[in-house]
């Protein structure tokens, strides 16, 4: 009887254990997700209006919108999107585009056509627009700062010629051989519906993001999330997931927690937390293309503006600039702070693979060959150069420390550089400051005697126009009559080989003059939970990084 009792208890325990295992097993077996959730740090902007934000604010609108020219997620190449073909006229002042037929706007706002292209250019050039490319488009359309919205619209109408519903010619005031880039998804010209504007103008645009993209806008909860649903039978790619949600999560630790807990499926994981993520079974997926560059700049390099130049400042001496470059142990910084996941940068924002796609032969192989001798880590040579320049006893300068989106490690990098410079006898004074204060200083050409850091996307010409132009520019980092002359020529020369030659000459000048302190190229990285996501490929060369979400493959 006792034996029977014991057997019954044993079988009972076994049964309970079996039941628990079954319940656990079924709960662990993940069903395919219906809503793809992505946790990202809040953007600088939280709005449905595409022209009242800068490029980084496009991240949460891109799923619903499309561009004339797309970017291939594997190769980073320009690929047809809403424009099937594009061709520049020999004079470089007009581009003919053939548009894709039969593409519908969401919510039945009609078929995409040439008038929507003109409308997109009107939106980005209107007086209130703060989009990143707004200034460029206004210049191309000949819009003056005193022009009213109506005058601007008229100029856009004159410059954007509608040949027929699916052919449009964009005439520009200046030669614009790189317009293919400006029209692409790397930049800002998104296609929105003219019919919708005519129906309700800005009031309607505030409410929703409406485009032709693979996801249709559902709702925006300011400060919380943006939600989309998929477009069935989309002309380009129908997403596997039914819904897509961008969730704003300010803290890096919380983003990691949401990813590990399975509440989101893709997240922006801080570099400092990536090892923890991997240890918990997450994957860190790098972009296929270089995402951004990181460089340090010398303040006060106003060689083309003599009244702003302080000729006796130490940074004016090329040997000092070379010494400061040679004092930096870039490899140690890359390994210790950036996990070794960097690519060396020879000349600030001159990319060896991406720039040649626009300008063949822009990249000088000598930069690679001579880099070690001229820029490589060599504290003894750095000290000798400083001695030669008359600064054997060193000198004091300000090193600004602040964080920038996407590269919070700038603070650590700055501190590492300070140690390197102290090791060769220099006296950097570390000043923690809000970035906007530094911005005020460099845009007013008053950042003498300081070094500061920036990050940004590759594109040599954009960089030169922003950093190295002496007037009507933005950053005023290093300017020189030699560069001015070539930038002026670039305003008229159309031939891409010739443009490449001019750009390369500027690159040579910057390289051999030690104009700044180029550091690294970096890839964007996405934290992915492999329980839910089988494949996510993104180029990273598009600001905001988390693009091409319509191609995400789910774990079966």
């Amino acid at each position, binding site marked *: 009887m006792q034996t029977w009792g014991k057997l019954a208890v044993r079988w009972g325990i076994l049964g309970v254990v079996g039941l628990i295992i079954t319940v656990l097993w079924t709960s662990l077996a993940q069903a395919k997700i219906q809503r793809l959730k992505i946790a990202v740090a809040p953007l600088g902007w939280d*709005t449905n209006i595409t022209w009242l934000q*800068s490029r980084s604010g496009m991240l949460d609108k891109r799923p619903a919108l499309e561009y004339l020219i797309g970017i291939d997620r594997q190769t980073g190449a320009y690929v047809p999107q809403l424009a099937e073909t594009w061709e520049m006229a020999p004079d470089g002042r007009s581009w003919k585009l053939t548009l894709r037929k039969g593409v519908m706007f969401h919510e039945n706002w009609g078929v995409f056509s040439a008038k929507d292209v003109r409308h997109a250019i009107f939106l980005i050039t209107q*007086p209130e627009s703060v989009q990143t490319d707004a200034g460029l488009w206004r210049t191309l359309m000949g819009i003056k700062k005193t022009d009213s919205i109506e005058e601007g619209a008229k100029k856009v109408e004159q410059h954007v010629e509608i040949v027929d519903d699916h052919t449009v010619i964009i005439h520009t005031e200046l030669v614009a051989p790189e317009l293919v880039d400006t029209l692409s998804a790397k930049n800002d010209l998104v296609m929105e519906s003219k019919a919708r504007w005519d129906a309700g103008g800005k009031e309607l645009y505030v409410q929703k993001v409406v485009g032709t993209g693979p996801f249709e806008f559902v709702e925006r909860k300011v400060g919380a999330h943006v939600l989309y649903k998929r477009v069935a039978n989309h002309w380009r790619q129908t997403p596997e997931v039914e819904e897509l949600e961008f969730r704003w*999560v*300010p803290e890096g630790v*919380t983003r990691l927690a949401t990813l590990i807990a399975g509440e989101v499926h893709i997240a922006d994981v801080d570099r400092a937390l990536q090892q923890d993520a991997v240890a918990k079974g997450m994957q860190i997926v790098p972009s296929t293309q270089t995402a951004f560059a990181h460089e340090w700049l010398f303040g006060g390099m106003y060689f083309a503006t003599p009244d702003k130049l302080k000729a006796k400042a130490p940074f004016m001496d090329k040997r000092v600039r070379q010494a400061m470059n040679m004092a930096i142990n870039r490899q140690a910084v890359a390994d210790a702070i950036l996990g070794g996941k960097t690519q060396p940068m020879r000349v600030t924002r001159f990319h060896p693979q991406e720039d040649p796609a626009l300008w063949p032969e822009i990249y000088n192989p000598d930069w690679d060959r001579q880099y070690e001798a001229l820029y490589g880590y060599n504290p003894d040579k750095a000290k000798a150069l400083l001695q030669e320049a008359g600064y054997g006893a060193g000198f004091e300068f300000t090193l600004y420390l602040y964080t920038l989106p996407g590269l919070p490690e700038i603070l650590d990098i700055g501190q590492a550089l300070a140690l390197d410079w102290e090791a060769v006898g220099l006296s950097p004074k570390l000043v923690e400051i809000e970035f906007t204060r530094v*911005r005020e200083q460099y845009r007013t050409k008053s950042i003498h005697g300081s070094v500061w850091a920036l990050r940004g996307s590759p594109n040599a010409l954009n960089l030169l126009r922003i950093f190295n132009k002496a007037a*009507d520019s*933005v950053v005023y980092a290093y300017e020189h009559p030699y560069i001015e002359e070539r930038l002026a020529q670039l305003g008229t020369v159309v031939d891409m080989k010739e443009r490449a030659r001019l750009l390369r000459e500027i690159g040579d000048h910057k390289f051999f003059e030690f104009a700044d302190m180029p550091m690294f190229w970096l890839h964007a990285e996405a934290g992915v939970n492999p329980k839910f996501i089988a494949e996510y490929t993104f180029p990273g060369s598009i600001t905001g990084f988390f693009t091409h979400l319509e191609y995400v493959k789910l774990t079966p």
Partner: protein
Amino acid sequence: MQRYIVVRFLQSILALWVMSLIVFCLARVTGNPLDVLLPMEAGPEEYERIAKHWGLDKPWFIPQDWSQPFDTQYATFMGKALRGDFGNSLKWQGYTAMNLVLQRLPATLELAGIALAISVVLALPIGVLSAALKDTAFDNGGKLIALLGQSLPSFWLAIMLMWIFAVILGWLPTSGRGGLTHMILPAISLGWFQVAALMRLVRSAMLDVLDSEFVKLARVKGLAEWKVVWKHCLRNAAIAPLTYFSITAGVLLTGSVVIESVFAWPGTGLLAVDAVRARDFQVVQAIVIVFAAVFILTNLLVDILYAYLDPRIRYQ
């Protein structure tokens, strides 16, 4: 009593006006919003154009042209603010500043309300019993709670709670606003410090009162101990905790910045931080005025409660 309330009300209006002046100036002293909000690529022409469009090219107080004396930033701000319009947000384009604050206020009220409830529900009985059972195991336990509550940084506690209960155990969501489960961790993190502080205050106030002559008399007269403690002592010990409670209410409403940030809770604390970072003057002004109004209103209510609790104040 009526005169007391009217005077306090008029003082509150004056305080609000002074606050508006301070926030107007301080917001602008921090720098130019264009340096935050315009893209890196924006040149001098874009700066000029947008400054004009957003009215940032106008002088703060003294008009350039006296034929248009109200063509200043402050006159524009006050003119609209008096009608409840704090202007359009610079960062959250398409939204008015007040609309944003009102949209986000319920989330903060919800969180602060629960945190406040937790702090009162826990602190009051623990504080009273700790005093009544002085130097017992219960009192020592209460002291330990107070020590931990006041020494653990709220962001650390928040992250620990999140990792234990959301990531490891999977019982609760990590972050965001949703149902009741979403509120538990942020409310505990937010209320934890207040529990400790309020409990200590209740305990020490109760100890003072328990030692009073009238308490001894009540006991001598044979009143039940629970009645002595919970009715007579607590009411007399309430002034100090009440003062702290009014501060706590304000702090919980305005000081939830860290917790809202850790738990991605879309409330006004997070909004305030984002607006300050973006130098979104309009939103900063609207938030500070609303917060100030909440503080002033809470203090006004507490002053009235003082008068109710303490007849000496009423008859002054």
